[in-house]
């Protein structure tokens, strides 16, 4: 439904209500969404705790403490210790650092690549479009997990580490975003305001930057939440399988891979249940935020 405030030029009696940009409206709508807000708060707290982990605790997380292995939760070790005698709680924080970092970095890079390719293809069309889209199709034809694993298998041992993982994931992951952005641009391009922007003398780059992208951005933001969740899952799954973050670096997936040891799975739930729960909650939270954002940006609410 169209929101039509009483704006008759004649009736200047009513004080004009504060005008709101679509962003502000979306923000307000988002803030009203309890589930999304709780999720956001959760995520922010989690992020802060994780990124501040080195300042919160001075424990050397890589240290193996033979005397303190497999201890159940206690006041000293809130979530107990793992099979290497490392404090699960501390590792959880550090794990969050890695998992969130990988998630965010991959999301950012993927969005960056995807938006650029998609926007260029969508806006210029023609040859540029077909070339870029052929290439995108090509990238999309690689089964994601399979190629990440193969590439990691090749690259590990040569240049290991989180960076490689992020690079590989990003390189293989941008196709979907590019497609989405392109189709969104194509449909947005049909809107007369884009024609208008050209007709009033706007140069192409300005039309893209100022008119198209902001309108595509809502889609991109929604997509970003989905991506973020997916990337966190991808990281943890890869790490779980042993092709992700190097084992000595704690990440939620690496912590979860402890559940592959039957004695841990059955008798030491404190080692793997916390990362599992945190992971599930985080993904849940991101999904809720995504829904909230999608709702808030629902075009029916403005325009």
């Amino acid at each position, binding site marked *: 439904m*169209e929101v039509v405030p*009483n704006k008759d030029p*004649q009736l200047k009696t009513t004080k004009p209500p504060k005008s709101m940009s679509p962003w502000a409206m979306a923000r307000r709508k988002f803030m009203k969404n309890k589930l999304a807000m709780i999720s956001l708060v959760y995520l922010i707290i989690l992020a802060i705790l994780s990124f501040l982990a080195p300042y919160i605790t001075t424990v050397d997380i890589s240290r193996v403490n033979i005397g303190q292995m497999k201890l159940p939760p206690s006041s000293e070790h809130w979530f107990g210790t793992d099979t290497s005698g490392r404090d699960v709680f501390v590792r959880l924080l550090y794990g969050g650092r890695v998992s969130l970092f990988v998630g965010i970095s991959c999301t950012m890079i993927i969005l960056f690549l995807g938006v650029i390719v998609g926007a260029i293809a969508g806006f210029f069309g023609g040859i540029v479009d077909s070339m870029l889209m052929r290439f995108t199709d090509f990238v999309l034809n690689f089964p994601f997990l399979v190629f990440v694993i193969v590439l990691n298998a090749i690259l590990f041992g040569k240049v290991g580490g989180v960076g490689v993982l992020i690079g590989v994931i990003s390189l293989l992951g941008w196709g979907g975003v590019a497609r989405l952005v392109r189709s969104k641009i194509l449909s947005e391009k049909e809107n007369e305001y884009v024609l208008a922007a050209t007709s009033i003398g706007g140069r192409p780059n300005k039309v893209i930057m100022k008119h198209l992208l902001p309108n595509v951005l809502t889609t991109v933001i929604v997509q970003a939440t989905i991506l973020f969740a997916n990337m966190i899952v991808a990281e943890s799954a890869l790490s779980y399988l042993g092709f992700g973050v190097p084992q000595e670096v704690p990440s939620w997936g690496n912590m979860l891979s402890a559940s592959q040891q039957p004695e841990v799975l059955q008798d030491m739930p404190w080692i793997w249940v916390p990362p599992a729960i945190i992971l599930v909650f985080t993904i849940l939270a991101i999904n809720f935020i995504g829904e909230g954002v999608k709702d808030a940006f629902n075009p029916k609410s403005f325009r």
Partner: protein
Amino acid sequence: MKNSQSNVNHDPLLQVKGLETAFSIEGKDHNAVDGVSFNVEKGKIVGIVGESGCGKSVMSLSVMNLLPKGIGKIRNGEVLFEGRNLEGLDDKEMNKIRGKDISMIFQEPMTSLNPVFTIGYQLEEVLHNHFKLSKKEAREKVVQLLSAVGISRADRIVDEYPHQLSGGMRQRVMIAMAIACQPKLLIADEPTTALDVTVQAQILELLQDIQKKNDMAIIFITHDLGVVSETCDEVIVMYAGRIVERTDVQRLFHSPKHPYTELLMGAIPRLEEQKDMLATIDGIVPSLTKMPEVGCRFANRCPKAMKECTTVTPKLAKNEEGHEVACLLYESSRPEEEVLR
């Protein structure tokens, strides 16, 4: 006027009495149709005009009991069809009437047909809904119907999908569907608005033909006064959920009484005459949540508004000529209590 004669044996085909239809918006009910009463006689074409958002569609959906479930509901009033109250019938009962006694066509021929079923299938469905027919009979009937609405390749069209037809053709299909069971009343909600003039002319011609042939009554909803003047017997002018004026078409166009009607007529450019300036109505129809509680709803846009217009609600009343109007400019519209005060 026929409907002014009080003939006890001769009920009007459709009687709408004090209909109030509300939508719940953010938990509160707001009347989109606010106390509307009118009759439709057998075989007559009643036009309903008004600006966008004034409740025309909601009114007709209320009659059909097709309001969106959970959001819209009839709060008050009754709808009598051939003397039988449709209000309160359950879906099953209502389904026996819908499509058979009362049928409806809509504004958007492009989206009103199900894109994944063939034309024939969708037409047969209405027949199956109301009659026991064999497949073959139904199909024959469908081809007949399609030819009747002027589709030339009827036997081939039955196997085509809606997207293969043009807008005008689809609207013809919709009409065929609506008249399939020879209903007594057809509600046409802006059936030509989405069509080009030449196609509109075709469709209007067709509707009038069919109406004559089947002796059907039609409620013809539109915002195009020109269309009304050419097709309707009677006209109802609605504004913001209420009827502001109602009379036969000649009288309305020759001597509109309500300022809203007047302005509306002044606002459209006409082919016949050249005006330098068109009449304008400032502002827009207030949205549901912003409807004034009392007084004339048109008051804040009305150039002839008086002080009392915002405090006294005019009622729709007949003047001596049988011309109904709801405006305080006319004595008849003043509610008695208010007069007394």
